[in-house]
Structures are given as C-alpha cells and as structure tokens.
C-alpha cells in the first residue's frame, strides 16, 4: 500500500532543480483517545468562553494576543498576523551543503522521505552525489503556511529531509556544570567498563516493540468483553555510593554466569 505524498516541491540547488514528492517517514502509532461526556459517553466539543460573562465567544470575534512578558499581552490585528505569514512556495531552497557531521542530531525533529516527481535521473543523481560527497544540505522551505528548516540527507539510495528545531528550542548543555561528585576509583571504572563490554551489542530497533501500547490495546479488548483488570504499583530505587564497587562486582559475576 503506497503512501500518499503530503507535498510536492522542487529542491533548488542554485539553478539546478530537482522535482520531489514529500512523504512522512513516521507513522504515529499512539493509542488515540477521545474526550467523552461521562454521562452519555459521547465525544465532547470545546468552546472558548469569556470568563467574565461566562458566554461563548464566536470564532470570528476571537482576538489574538502575544505574551511579551508574563501577564502582559499585546493584541495583534489580523493584518499584522497576515503580514507574518510566509508566501507560499514550492521550493526547497538549499542554503548550504555542509559536511554530514555538522548538523547536530539534537536539532533533528521529524523525518520525511523525498521521492522523485517525474525526473528520476536528477533525483537519484542528487542522492548519489550527496552520499559520495559526505554532505548534507541545510534546506529552507514553506509548507502549508509555515516556514521550515531541515537537513537534506540520504537513506540508502533515497533522499530524506529531516526538519530541524530552531536554535532557541535546544537547551545548551555546555552551560551546565559537570556533576562534581567523588571520582569513581580505577577499580570501579575498570569493572564498569567490563560490565558495559559484556552488554555490548548492535542496535536492532526491530527487536523492540511498544509492549505498553499492546497492553493498552489488550486492556481495551478485555474491557469491551467486561473483564476486570488487577492494579499494581511501582517503586523508585535507592542509590548507595558506598557499595558501588560491590554492586559492580556482583553485576559482573551475574553477567558472566548468564
């Protein structure tokens, strides 16, 4: 079952243009709930109410305000907001091609596949060239009234575009102090390294399933059939620095025996 493209565009590298179709690379599999009226068990609606009058405010009469500081809003007129809206465009502009180590994965937000739209030669040539050059494109585009920044890279022979978070949205870890607790002893470091080595493997994402999601679905099935489910609780563990060495030794023994 082929997926539907969510957008059509042209990747623009200077004067070279590559027509593409965009597809979401992510399928949301969260269990979706609806909010219900507890009496009638039918979905509720939402409305915006003026708390002073208790009356609903019609959509056309709702005004927008931007919070310039806590407790202080500036109302923005429709024309002012319209002025902010980017012009629609079908271009994915490449700002620069940087080494593929340059774009930090912490900026990565959501991945999309790009597929060829007609001209397959240009498409596969671009993917191949990007791979061979070891570069990623820093891209900019406007989609559905919103501006995006993204990283144009490859996934096998195909092009992928991963949207990036803005600078302000990524907390700068370098501003944090390193925890300055007592340094682990050499013996502890060595044992920890051994332990980590024993648990070393390769990353196999397909090995993991969302068991919780499956259990929620089972619960729904059970409830539908009128069954009762028992409840249980979880506890947090305590740490103890003093016995760290002992715990490591025991862990090693256990891991070795397994």
């Amino acid at each position: 079952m082929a997926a539907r493209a969510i957008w059509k565009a042209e990747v623009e590298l200077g004067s070279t243009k590559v027509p593409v179709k965009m597809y979401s690379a992510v399928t949301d599999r969260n269990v979706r709930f609806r909010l219900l009226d507890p009496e009638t068990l039918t979905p509720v609606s939402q409305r915006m109410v003026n708390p002073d009058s208790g009356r609903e405010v019609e959509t056309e009469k709702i005004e927008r305000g931007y919070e310039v500081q806590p407790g202080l809003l500036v109302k923005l007129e429709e024309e002012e907001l319209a002025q902010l809206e980017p012009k629609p465009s079908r271009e994915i502009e490449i700002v620069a091609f940087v080494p593929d180590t340059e774009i930090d994965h912490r900026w990565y937000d959501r991945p999309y596949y790009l597929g060829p739209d007609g001209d397959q030669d240009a498409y596969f040539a671009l993917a191949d060239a990007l791979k061979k050059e070891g570069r990623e494109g820093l891209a900019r585009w406007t989609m559905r009234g919103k501006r995006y920044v993204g990283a144009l890279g490859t996934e096998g022979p195909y092009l992928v575009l991963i949207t990036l978070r803005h600078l302000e949205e990524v907390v700068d870890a370098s501003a944090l102090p390193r925890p300055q607790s007592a340094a682990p002893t050499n013996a502890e470091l060595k044992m920890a390294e051994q332990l980590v080595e024993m648990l070393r493997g390769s990353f196999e994402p397909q090995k993991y399933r969302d068991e919780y999601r499956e259990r929620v679905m089972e619960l729904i099935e059970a409830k539908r059939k009128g069954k009762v489910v028992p409840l249980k609780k979880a506890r947090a563990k305590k740490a103890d620095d003093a016995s760290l060495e002992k715990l490591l030794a025991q862990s090693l023994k256990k891991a070795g025996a397994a």
Partner: protein
Amino acid sequence: MSATTRKPAKKRWAKKPSAPKSAATRKGPKRANGSAKRPATKARPAQRPAPERRPTEADEVRVRPFWSGTVTFGLVSIPVDLYPANRPRQAGLRMLSEEGTPLRREYHNPDSGGRIENTEVVRGYEIDKGEFVVLTDEELEAVEPERTRDISLDAFVDIDELDPMYFDRAYFLAPRENAGKAYRLLADVMENNDLAGIARFVMRSKEYLVAIMADGGILRAETMRFADEIRTPEEIGLPKPKKPRPADVTAMKKAIAKLASEQLPEEALQDEYLAELRRIAEAKRKRGQDVVEVEEPQDEEDVGVIDLMEALKKSMAAASGRGARKRA
C-alpha cells in the same frame, strides 16, 4: 511476527566518510553548538562561540522537573530526574475577547449544550463508530510494565550505529540523592568508549525506547520511535532505485560544490517567524498600543514549575555536594 519483517533503516552515521579516527576526529555525538571534533582528553569540549542573539523572554521559559526514575545497569542503580532538553516554541498566541480578556476553554456536550467540568471528562477509545470503551488513569497505570520507574540499560551500542531518524525528544538526566558517583561512573565509561546505552521505560503512560549518551559528563536520553513507527521506502512505495548516469552525478557534485560550506550557517536556524512576531509585538508595546494586562491564571498545574537551567544546575551541584561529603 511482523516486527521482524521490517527492514531496519540504514545507519546514517555509519555512512560518514571513513576519516581516520585520530584524536581530533573521534566520532561521537555531534555537539549542539560546539564543533563535532573534540580533544581526546576528558576536558570539556572546546565550544564554538555561541551565535550572538539578543536575550529574549524565551530565555526564561519555565518548565517543570519532568519525571524521576532510576537508571540501572547491572545491579547499579542511579536515581535521576529528567528535564526536557528541548524548549517549547514560544510562538503561541493567546485567545482574547474583544475587551482583551483571555478566554477559557470549556468542554460541553454538543447535543445538550451542557457544560462538563474538565475534571469530569473521561477518556474513551473508539472501538466501533460512535462506540467507546472508557479507560481510567488507574487502569492505564495498571498495565504499565513492572519496570515502570526503571530505565534499565540492557545493551550498549556504538553511538554511530544509532539512526537519528529514530530520535524523537531529548531529556537531560540529573543525579538524585546519592547517585553522584554512580552517575559519573556511567557517564565516564560511555563517553570514553563512544557508547550509548539502550533502555526501555514507561513515563507518563507511554512506553519509550531510549538511547542514553554522555556528553561533557552529562547524561542525555533521546527517546526513540519504535521500528514500526518508521516507514521504509518500500512501504511508501518509492520507485526502485535507478543507477544514475555518471554525467548527472558529476553535474550534481558541481552544484553541491557551489553551495558547499564547512560550517553550519547557524543563523539559518533562527526562528524568523518568532523574531518577527516579537518585533511587531514589542513595537506596539513601546507605543502603548493594544497592550493588555492580564492576571496570570492560578493554574494548579503551574505549582512546582521551575527554571530549567537553574533546576539542572542545582541538581548537578546537589548530587555532587552530598556525594563528596559522604566520602570525606
């Protein structure tokens, strides 16, 4: 089992040109605002100067300490607090009445028009059109796996093996209680060996797969999408790859070279929309035009909200203090 039939996505970090793994080009997680290179010593990585930007209200974005759990590896437990490493985008607009009163969202029954209090609304899963099974918080908690507060590291993998397509959100881990030393031990071992720990855990009614990495002595967890949430090119129906003509590839290489830059032009990551929104709003505020003062809603949810940076700094220091005292 359909999970095994899915082809894993190709590694994206492994495709890097095979640069010699010298001290200067050691692989490792790329840095948010530092260079990808770092000295082989454990000293703090040299940071590229942060791009200049005006301090804005967003710097004071407040977040709550997110979640507390326990990282375990082997029999070692490290109680930690999680803090989001991503700030929410501050581009939201409040809805107001014509007089400038912030509006309240209310639920109501569309048939009867009757209002339903937020606390009374229940959650239902639609099993058939218009037919719902109601699930309570208790019931959902009950199906959380037993390891619910544990982030049990059951595998360590090369950081380069992780496909960033899987990454969803990032959290910093801060040590709690007496966890300082064990925290440091885990961070050191992972950082020295360019490893990430893989774990599964449940936080707020959702199961996560996480990769935990150390960067500058600080542990960070990246929640990952499950394999069945990432589509393959085959699933999407992308056409079979076609071997490109060498002439086309050369032409593309030329086009790439024209736009090549060795450094990321970070100004491209500025939020232009938000900057413009603020500029307009600030200009109006200076003119005293359309400014509305509102009472901050005394939302019970706001209790315990703290400044992220402050909270993190504090917990790093607290764990250190206690750990050190204990040893002395």
